């Protein structure tokens, strides 16, 4: 599905948080959004989903977002926010099943239609959480919870996935697992827009990188741009160091001053 933003501007509490942002994401493309804290990444994503008021124009498959109901938007885009407010005793099964909301009538049972059960089963399999289904979400680790929210988004069966910092605060094993799920969803022709706090996630996903600084697009280029440490320094105001092997760029991290013994 094609996502377009034209001259998108968001003002919150009198401050311009997103400034005249325009881009177009083609169907099946993967786009990572990077930038310093407070650059407007999460606000941009919320504006693209029509969750906050914004000036300018957002279109999903050429259709202006303000002409779509929330249910119609949810059928086109599944969103995993950065912060989940609470779990209040819900089981994993409840959270994943709730992903089908946009496809189910208010009084219809999920069990009566194979479409729903298949969508839920395949999301559970893709995220490898079948052993967690009867656990309460508040008893899970941070990494397990993130997989549950991702499964709920996949159960939504929308052609586009918006993920806000999906690997932040996760241990290395869960980061790798989340990257696997995202790469797998790209193979199934999902369009992916991912806010990356960690630049290594953008390297792993490849595709294209949109950098935001002070709410405006700083650069919008193929993911190879991450090899350009000068551009990264200008974006983040700090030095970076790259790690490569025979296959190309492996990882990038800020250059820390080594503490003298």
């Amino acid at each position, binding site marked *: 599905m094609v996502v377009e933003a034209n001259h998108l501007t968001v003002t919150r509490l009198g401050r311009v948080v997103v400034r005249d942002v325009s881009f177009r994401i083609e169907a099946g493309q993967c786009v990572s959004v990077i930038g310093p804290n407070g650059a407007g990444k999460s606000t941009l994503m919320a504006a693209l989903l029509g969750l906050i008021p914004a000036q300018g124009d957002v279109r999903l498959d050429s259709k202006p977002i303000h002409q779509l109901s929330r249910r119609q938007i949810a*059928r086109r885009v599944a969103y995993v926010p950065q912060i*989940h*407010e*609470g779990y209040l005793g819900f089981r994993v099964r409840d959270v994943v099943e709730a992903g089908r909301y946009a496809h189910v009538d208010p009084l219809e049972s999920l069990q009566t239609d194979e479409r729903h059960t298949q969508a839920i089963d395949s999301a559970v399999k893709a995220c490898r959480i079948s052993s967690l289904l009867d656990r309460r979400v508040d008893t899970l680790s941070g990494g397990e919870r993130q997989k549950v929210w991702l499964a709920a988004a996949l159960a939504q069966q929308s052609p586009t996935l918006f993920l806000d910092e999906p690997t932040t605060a996760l241990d290395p094993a869960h980061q790798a697992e989340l990257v696997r799920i995202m790469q797998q969803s790209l193979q199934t022709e999902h369009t992916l827009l991912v806010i990356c706090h960690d630049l290594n996630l953008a390297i792993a996903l490849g595709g294209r990188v949109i950098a935001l600084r002070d709410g405006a697009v700083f650069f919008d280029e193929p993911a190879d741009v991450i090899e350009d440490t000068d551009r990264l320094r200008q974006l983040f105001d700090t030095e970076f160091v790259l790690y490569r092997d025979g296959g190309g760029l492996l990882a990038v991290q800020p250059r820390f001053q080594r503490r003298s013994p």
Partner: protein
Amino acid sequence: MLRRPSVVYVALIAACGAVAIGSMLVGTCGESFFAAWQELALPRLLLSMISGAALAVAGAMFQALFRNPLASPYTLGVSSGASLGAALTIFTVGGGLWHGIPIVSVAAFGGGLICVMIVYTVAHLRQGRSIAMLLLAGVTIGFICSALIAMLLYLAQQHDLRHILQWMMGSLETVGFDPVYESAAMVALAMGVAIYLHRDLDLLMMGELVAASRGVSVKGSRRLIYFSASLMTAGVVAHSGPIVFVGLIVPHIMRFVVGPIHRHLLPACVLAGAAFLPLCDVLARNAMWWLREEPRQLPVGVLTSLVGGCFFLYLLLTRREERTLV
């Protein structure tokens, strides 16, 4: 302690039946209910069942909406507004029908809805902190309504004063079926909306952002939930007065028993509320007779406040996971 919903429903239906039979057998202050069962006993039993069910469901809806187990028609100013509307009507025209319209019910619903609108507007003017603001605004409106009711009590004549006071303490004393029909009509309409919105309630409880991204029209659903929960509260308050804590305790316990999914929670609340309030009524109306052989009835609201308050305090002190939700 999650139980299979069907097992819980069977147990609760049995409890409703047992309480209903017990209520008829025990009667009031040593007098059997069978003597005047059509005029007094059955309407009172039905009114208490409808009131209990409605308060429990309204409480469950508000708790989901605010994602807070302390939310209830009372903490949000809805029942204070309904009480003020009803008290004002009793004070000025004495209640009854006006051109065939049950004026106390209408005034209670109007009062509840006006308060909801004020609370909602106050919270809306301060974006970004809407849920905290809604609760604070609700408590503040509750204080203002209480002050106005106190003023009415001060100004009331001796006869009205007793009527308003007894009503304010929460009483299920009723004669005939008219109040039952009125409450049932308001509650049935609102209950239909609650059942229709059961998935919206689940998702709103997971967070507004999650709800919106799954396809819930958050503003529209929130308005409908407000409207129907207020209607349910008004349907009860108009005839029974503000019966405190049922809307807080029953959904709280039922969420613990059947889980937070509203497809299971709402029917459980209906049945548990319909068993709990008649039980409280039997105990309250006979307490003075059993303890001191005095033929006086304790208002049921006094008992629900006492039992509910102590129980809630116990929950807050003992259940770790619930404490973190507050």
